[in-house]
């Protein structure tokens, strides 16, 4: 950076005279809080937990409920971490559920060929294979989005179908069992310190790592910059295309990891169980305050956004409300979240 000297006598940074949204610090802070959809949605989550706990303190406010909700959302959280990166670049990844299934199929195939489907060696090899399989789909998505300039919606809708189809072709449409006992009893049902399920530990670790990278690393900075103004990033020399490829590759690799988590939990490939994972992950990310238009968002919001639908489900079950209300309520939360995002975008001037 070159040093720029100031002509003498003119070194008072004056304030702008024109009307300005950001006039006073207090006003600025107010704008930020009101438009901070993450804070709002966190209060919504706390409110839900509070209401259900008050209504059924015996059933809802228990360690067991917390554990069940955390386990139930673990693989979705891993998908949503990748989705957060993708959506912050103003992209979308519809393929995650299918890639999860495909990676699970690959993992089982590798594990069965190694050590007759048992042993830690098989677990490690299977996990690596699943992550690589997911990475491959992600790279394909990324190259088609960034280099071939095909809209992400179409590219990932295509791989959504293809990955699911490939998984069905490989298995003949029959769910594969034979997941190593080591994987199921450790990650699947085991608990850290006898309390925290390993599934949750893995998912939270991924989320925290993702959040740290997003917030403190150059990789995260470029992710925001590209979603905010890709042309600006390109002009200052950021390799936008390559970064986008990495983003989709990351989402694919995390879907591969989620495939292993899914195997550990359900002990089979659950071929037909993930058709709406993509929409659930997108909903979680958007509910958490990440903007579909890119440039805005964060991992804490995503964690909250993953939890809200699950808390609603549990609460309704415990209150004996028909569970159909859950999707109804999540729909309302989703639309409200996007509305808050629009308010936020209106608060800042166009650039």
């Amino acid at each position, binding site marked *: 950076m070159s040093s720029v000297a100031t002509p003498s006598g003119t070194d008072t940074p*004056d304030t*702008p005279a*024109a009307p300005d949204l950001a006039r006073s610090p207090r006003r600025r802070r107010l704008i930020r809080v009101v438009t901070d959809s993450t804070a709002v949605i966190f209060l919504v989550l706390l409110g839900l937990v509070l209401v259900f706990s008050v209504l059924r303190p015996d059933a809802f406010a228990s360690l067991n409920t917390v554990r069940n909700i955390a386990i139930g959302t673990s693989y979705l959280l891993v998908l949503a971490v990748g989705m957060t990166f993708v959506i912050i670049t103003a992209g979308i990844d519809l393929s995650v559920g299918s890639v999860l299934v495909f990676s699970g199929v690959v993992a089982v195939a590798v594990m069965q060929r190694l050590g007759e489907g048992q042993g830690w060696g098989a677990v490690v090899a299977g996990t690596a294979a699943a992550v690589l399989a997911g990475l491959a789909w992600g790279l394909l998505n990324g190259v088609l989005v960034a280099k071939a300039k095909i809209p992400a919606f179409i590219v990932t809708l295509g791989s959504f179908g293809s990955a699911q189809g490939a998984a069905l072709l490989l298995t003949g449409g029959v769910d594969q069992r034979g997941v190593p006992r080591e994987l199921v009893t450790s990650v699947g049902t085991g608990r850290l310190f006898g309390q925290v399920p390993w599934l949750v530990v893995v998912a939270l670790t991924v989320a925290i790592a993702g959040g740290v*990278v997003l917030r403190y690393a150059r990789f995260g900075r470029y992710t925001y910059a590209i979603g905010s103004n890709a042309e600006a990033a390109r*002009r200052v020399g950021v390799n936008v295309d390559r970064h986008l490829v990495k983003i989709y590759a990351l989402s694919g690799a995390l879907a591969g990891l989620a495939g292993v988590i899914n195997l550990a939990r359900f002990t089979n490939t659950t071929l037909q169980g993930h058709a709406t994972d993509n929409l659930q992950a997108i909903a979680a990310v958007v509910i958490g305050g990440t903007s579909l238009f890119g440039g805005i968002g964060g991992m804490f919001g995503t964690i909250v956004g993953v939890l809200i639908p699950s808390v609603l489900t549990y609460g309704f079950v415990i209150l004996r409300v028909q569970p159909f209300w859950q999707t109804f309520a999540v729909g309302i939360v989703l639309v409200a979240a996007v509305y808050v995002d629009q308010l936020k975008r209106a608060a800042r001037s166009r650039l």
Partner: protein
Amino acid sequence: MTLLEACGVVKRYGHVEALRGADFSVDAGEVVALIGDNGAGKSTLVKVLSGVTAPDAGELRFAGETVNLSGPTAARALGIETVYQDLALAPDLDPAANLFLGREQMRRGLLGRLGFLDNRAMAERTRAAFAELGAGVQSERMPVGFLSGGQRQSIAVGRAAAWASKLIFMDEPTAALGVVQAERVLDLIRRVRDTGIGVVFISHNMPHVLQVADRMEVLRLGRRVARFAAADTSMEQLVGAMTGAIEQVDQGAAP
């Protein structure tokens, strides 16, 4: 000293000749206004001079040496920065993140090698850079999208000034601004010039041009048709040269 010089630059887009042997020169520590009517070739010339577009013919000399600008990165390596008309800031990033975008300062040691940013150092250097320029950006942590047009333009100019060691191109930096804000940006341009950096100011606004420029170079139909020294030039002369009412004027390079 002539900092950057273009001789006989030709640029064709299909059958359209945007530049037909255009000449241009700018010295260190002067503000040169590049003016001309729409379609005169101003933007194309700036793209060539800032390395964005390769010319079909002609020569560029930087500090006396022939250069071949392979891209904006090559121009930046020479100390040339450009402030684009549409700002090219990321509205969701704060001023410091925008100032350092693409040139982030990393943490020391292992964390830095792992790709972690030194946000505190970048914020401090941003504050210092803007303070030195007298560009009052009071909210380093605010996404620039929340700031006024004038403040955003100040950040864009400040970014260019912070990184440019030799020359800054500014494409219509006052076009979207109110009176007061435009004054602030013009003031900023003078301060940048006073540090010895050359500034090329592209504008349609003749009062702004007369206010800030030391010299004017006029393009018409892809050629330089006139050079004026600011001191004794009237608006009529400029408009006459732009429209072709005045044929050829040359008051030479730097006075």
